[in-house]
């Protein structure tokens, strides 16, 4: 059967091709790409809406034979985990392309950048929609090379070698992770004889094999999430990447890792993951505290937000490691909330960097409230959202993760998780500290430098959807939490 998801894959490719080949000025190419992204965004909302009611059914499913001799099928579909992430991807891509309209990169090549962004979007959507292991892997890898180019060619204009190194480091660490993931997939195939995720979910996997697979996936996806101690590539990548690259990296690419972990641990190896879950929880919590402490010492805004991403992903990992439906909901909420809020943060910091020339705190100076009031206000808003202020999206992700850790899967040791929950709560406090300190350093203070141009219309257009999404997800948690507890799933009450 053919669902409609191929449309979501073809549209970005068409946009990329159009951007590269259309004649005329560069602006026309960006408009082509933006048109494709707009249509993709609109189309991607339908599966999410169509899922309302039962999150366990796959919508828009496509299931045709692809490479018969190897047993690989072209199997796509969206469910309650993946549909919101697809919308997040299309939304962030749309915002990125809008921001490229009036602010093309100084070094030129905006056509190629637009094309690469659209390819990354396609790869991400494909990863989220894939229901076959090899299809998943293919799209998972598709994203990497374009991202390398984005960081290495359009990154920090003052540091050519540094941005190459950051991009290569990102690529190498992620590819090593992918290799481990591929080994895990092959083990699954060897053990069960199929690559299909739905079939694997139905048939189940033996616990021994499941544990091996779960460990390999932990290490493999952990490199992408990023999980401590495989996190070292993220601050470099973010500080050298262009704004568009940072937004996509933080908003979408990190989610590929957590989505993979959540999908395979929840659906394919739920029993095998029991042995490894406490380690995931522990590493996630270490990431929360470590990330928060590192943030306090940062002198560069983009590195600060990178470390805060490590912290937020730590919460998502803690939620995944709980192995309950509540944990899965919490992890997905955290995923989407982090994508929206950190995307906004990177846009704002990118705007500051454009105006001042650097994201270093000493160069940026103080009193942004005075020099560019609206910019300062949005920065403060995004920072408050990111520290988990209730009423905004970040709160539910963090709170539900802690709540899930309070009541883990009966097969897991509750005392371990209570300890993890307490340490994570300390991390929440530290997160609050570094964000208000950041607001104090950047927005407040004595206004002794020149005023900066305030937020322009095109910036408003590309940021407002994220602001609205942050508020909407904060006061209407029902947007993410409508799917009832799935019946008949391992671990459900």
């Amino acid at each position, binding site marked *: 059967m053919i669902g409609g998801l191929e449309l979501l894959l073809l549209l970005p490719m068409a946009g990329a091709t159009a951007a590269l080949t259309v004649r005329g000025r560069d602006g026309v190419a960006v408009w082509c790409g933006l048109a494709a992204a707009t249509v993709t965004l609109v189309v991607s909302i339908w599966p999410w809406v169509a899922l309302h009611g039962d999150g366990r059914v796959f919508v828009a499913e496509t299931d045709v034979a692809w490479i018969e001799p190897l047993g690989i099928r072209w199997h796509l579909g969206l469910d309650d985990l993946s549909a919101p992430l697809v919308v997040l991807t299309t939304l962030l891509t749309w915002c990125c392309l809008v921001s490229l309209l009036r602010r093309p990169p100084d070094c030129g090549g905006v056509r190629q950048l637009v094309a690469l962004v659209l390819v990354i979007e396609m790869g991400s959507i494909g990863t989220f929609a894939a229901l076959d292991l090899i299809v998943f892997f293919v799209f998972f890898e598709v994203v990497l090379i374009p991202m390398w180019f984005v960081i290495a060619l359009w990154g920090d204009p003052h540091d050519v070698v540094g941005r190459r190194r950051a991009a290569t480091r990102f690529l190498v660490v992620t590819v090593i992770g992918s290799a481990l993931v591929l080994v895990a997939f092959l083990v699954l195939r060897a053990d069960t004889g199929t690559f299909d995720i739905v079939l694997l979910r139905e048939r189940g996997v033996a616990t021994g094999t499941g544990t091996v697979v779960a460990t390999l996936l932990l290490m493999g996806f952990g490199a992408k999430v990023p999980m401590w101690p495989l996190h070292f590539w993220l601050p470099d990548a973010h500080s050298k990447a262009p704004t568009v690259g940072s937004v996509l990296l933080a908003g979408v690419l990190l989610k590929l890792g957590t989505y993979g972990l959540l999908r395979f641990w929840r659906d394919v190896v739920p029993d095998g993951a029991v042995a490894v879950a406490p380690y995931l929880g522990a590493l996630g919590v270490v990431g929360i505290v470590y990330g928060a402490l590192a943030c*306090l010492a940062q002198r560069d805004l983009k590195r600060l937000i990178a470390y805060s991403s490590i912290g937020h992903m730590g919460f998502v990992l803690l939620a995944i490691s709980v192995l309950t439906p509540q944990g899965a909901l*919490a992890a997905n909420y955290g995923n989407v909330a982090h994508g929206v809020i950190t995307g906004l943060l990177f846009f704002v910091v990118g705007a500051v960097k454009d105006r001042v020339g650097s994201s270093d705190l000493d160069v940026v100076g103080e009193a942004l409230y005075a020099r560019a009031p609206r910019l300062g206000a949005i920065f403060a808003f995004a920072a408050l959202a990111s520290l988990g*202020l209730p009423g905004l999206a970040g709160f539910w992700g963090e709170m539900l993760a*802690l709540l899930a850790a*309070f009541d883990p899967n009966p097969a897991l040791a509750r005392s371990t998780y209570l300890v993890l929950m307490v340490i994570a709560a*300390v991390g929440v*406090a*530290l997160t609050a500290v570094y964000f208000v300190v950041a607001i104090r350093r950047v927005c*407040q*203070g004595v206004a002794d430098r020149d005023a900066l141009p305030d937020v322009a219309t095109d910036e408003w257009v590309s940021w407002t959807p994220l602001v609205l999404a942050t508020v909407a997800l904060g006061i209407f948690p029902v947007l993410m939490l409508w799917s009832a507890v799935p019946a008949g799933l391992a671990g459900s009450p």
Partner: protein
Amino acid sequence: MTAFAVIVLPIIAAISAVGAAHRWERAAPAFGIGGTAAAWAAAVAVGVQQWGGADPSVVGDGYVDTGGFPISFVLRVDQLSASMLVLATSVALLVQVYSVGYLRGDPRYPSYVAFVCLFTSAMALVVTADDLFVLLVGWEVMGACSYLLIGHHWELEPARAGAVKAFVMTRVGDLGLLVGIFVLGKAAETYRVSGVIEAALAGEIGTGTATTACLLVLCGVVGKSAQFPLHTWLPDAMPGPTPISALIHAATMVAAGVFLVARLLPVFVLSDVALGVLSAVAVVTMLGASLFALAADDLKRVLAWSTVSQLALMFGALSLGTVDGYAAGVLHLLSHGVFKALLFLAAGSVIHAVGTQRLSSMGGLRRAMPWTFATMTVGFAALAGVPPLVGFFSKDAVLAAAVDAAFHGEAGRGWPVLVAALLTTVLTTAYCVRAWLMVFLGARAGQVTGPDAVVVAPVHESPPEMVGPLGVLAALGVLGGVAVLRPTYLGLEPEHLHVGVALTSIVLVGLSAFVVVAEWSRSQRCEPAEVLGPFRTVLAREASYDTLLDHAVVRPTWRLSRLTAVVESDVVEPYPRGADTGAGWASRLLRWFHDGDVQRYVTVIVLGAVSVAVVVGMVRP
């Protein structure tokens, strides 16, 4: 529905105020006062309905499934909620009117109005929410508004520091509250406040669980209401605009902690340990804070410590665990809201006129500012507990409940609370009279007659939009005592006036005032606190608690963070760099073989082929 309006109207007003600010000059005050007035009207409507004896009204039935117990989006208004709603919206409305005069010409006025409106909504949400998580949302939004408003004058270092300190200390406490909600929810199998109370009354919550939950909830309460050990943020929040201090840090937000304990009292009653801890905290705080107030030189700081002390008094009353204690605590909460807001707004009027907050720079203002003098006198008298003002009745209720508990019930908690409350009465009167004398009586500081005369700028009374609210609050303070604050409005039996207690407290008030006035006259009308002698410096430094916190918590955290940065650059970074260098060495090693000598390449091929042939030959002969 009306309750919902109380929450929503100020938010609409906030958005309108900010949105229309650059188009219409008067947008901010218009929307601010209009929106808050509408909310106040709705609150009064709800209040009249509830005080008239209606059943608690429930609004809304939405809920959200999280995989565990659902989170309900339901509001429940009973008499306690209604009283709090009226108090919050009334003070908010008066503050909005007052701010028109106080912040005249401030360029950030629209955002100020928006945050005050948002705060009002959040407070309304806290007192009407029937779900613990929704309550937490309102609780923390209040904290965020408090943070944003304390930092209103962010070009000043004390404002920035105070805002950060307030936010961080309350957030730390709120984490305990969050975990406490988890425990309560699991024990009662619901997150609905009404459900939790029902479970507690039905005995479904064990003592151990109740203790854990209550102690955790106390973390949040202690943080929000600035009790020991999280008490130092409130005086440091004083660099914020004075109307904010009146609204947030006197009448409403800090009172939310008292409200929460009062609301969850059925659960607290299940745990003696929790009530014991609460009363210990209350006793320590009420005495310590009033001593600090006695030694402080800053008028707002005196009032801030006074707030801390009075909140402790409310907690002391609640910790008795009796119906009388509950009634007394809530009554004092409501009356304190009135007279403390009055005192802060009046202090704002004084500070606005004189230009300084230091008591030692004030004096002799009673002629220059007659209205402020009159209303502030009423406020100080209410705080000290002079009959027939409202403060007298509520403090009397607390003392009576303590006497009851000490003699007839929980002697373990009753006696400490009683003794502490009596001592606090003395100290409260002392610092009230001291402040009153130093501000209004005597000579103006700096006014020295003779050749060394220092010229002091003339002082005049504040504009009517500032004095008006003062008058309203003073009137409430005078009338409130008998007419407005009756326990029947909380669904309880009318209070009997405990004559013995009343007389004792009047005597104590009189004695204390006499001593202070005498000391003041003796010390050339300057500083009555001189009587404390060397003890004064210790109190003025507030027992160096902040320094302790700095050394014990703040500096280690900074050190840890620098350590983490060092770990990142020196411990974690070498691994990928090492991999990079290692790969370089490996490739250089292999490169050694590629020196262009073709014959060496062929030798290797031959050797390799031969060994493979030999191995194959040996394996499969």
